[in-house]
């Protein structure tokens, strides 16, 4: 079964102007984001803002890994729909059980 769809040709991306291998480019972004997260975690902001900021960065990093490293960008569209279909279930479970302990409803 030939594995044709991974277009090896466009494996370059421009990163701050100069051409670099896409995987290395994404790698650098991931490292910077992780560094940013570690710094952000110890800044004196209110807890909620910190938490949501950190989670947003984590989700973005996860999306980067999924989109580039797991080649979702080359796959047919319905594969990444399939890939994210369990996430709403996770949200439903966690958010519903959190209402047990006063979230949203007193």
């Amino acid at each position, binding site marked *: *079964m*030939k*594995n044709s*769809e*991974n277009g*090896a040709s466009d*494996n370059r991306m421009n990163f701050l102007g100069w051409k670099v291998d896409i*995987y*290395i480019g*994404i*790698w650098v972004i*991931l*490292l910077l984001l*992780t*560094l940013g*997260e*570690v710094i*952000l*975690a*110890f800044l004196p902001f209110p807890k909620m803002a*910190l*938490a949501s900021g*950190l*989670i947003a*960065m*984590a*989700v973005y*990093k*996860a999306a980067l*890994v*999924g989109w*580039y*490293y*797991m*080649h979702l960008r080359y*796959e*047919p569209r*319905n*594969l990444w729909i*399939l*890939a994210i*279909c*369990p*996430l709403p*279930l*996770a949200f439903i*479970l*966690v958010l519903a*059980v*959190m209402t*047990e*302990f006063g*979230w949203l409803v007193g």
Partner: protein
Amino acid sequence: MSDAVTASIDRTPEPGMGVFNKKLGMWVFLLSEVMFFTSLIGSYIILRYAHPDHFAAPGELLNVNLTAANTFLLICSSVSMVKAFAAIQQGDLKGLQRWLLATILMGTAFVSVQAYEYIMLAHEGFLPALADYTAHAGGPLYGATFYVMTGFHGAHVSLGVLALIFVYIRALRGEYTVADHEGVEVIGLYWHFVDLVWIILFTIVYLI
């Protein structure tokens, strides 16, 4: 529609998703893994919301710098995995073997750093059981949820390393070619998934 009926029908699954079976199988398996980690991480979030006093502030108990380095390590192993896959796509068997070895080493390093971290925490009395949690901050729920989540993630990384060794041996025997390297891509998917789970875990366990 009823075009000329040719005896040897091309087996590519025309009504399928245009993805070879093993890759589709791995993606479907990863969905069940997402649900497994949902139940563990979900319990952590719920218990943390229910009993915030049981949990300590970031860095108070857990060694964030060490695990940040560990996270770098896992991200690098993700890159070496994808470089290995890119290598075999061009048929560069040597490159595949080199990058696979790098991934295996980094994976093992990650697990051993985590084991070391566990030993350090245990000395501080940070243990899962209710009876022997004697750390200076947080409560037994903190220990229990921490060890369950990171423990099962570590187990998944170790299984991944074993599978990588298996793939590495087949690579040494030259069983992967440009035309057929499904095994490399499938194990790559698993490895990136494990890295992705760690990215989420690192943030919500260590940094929040």
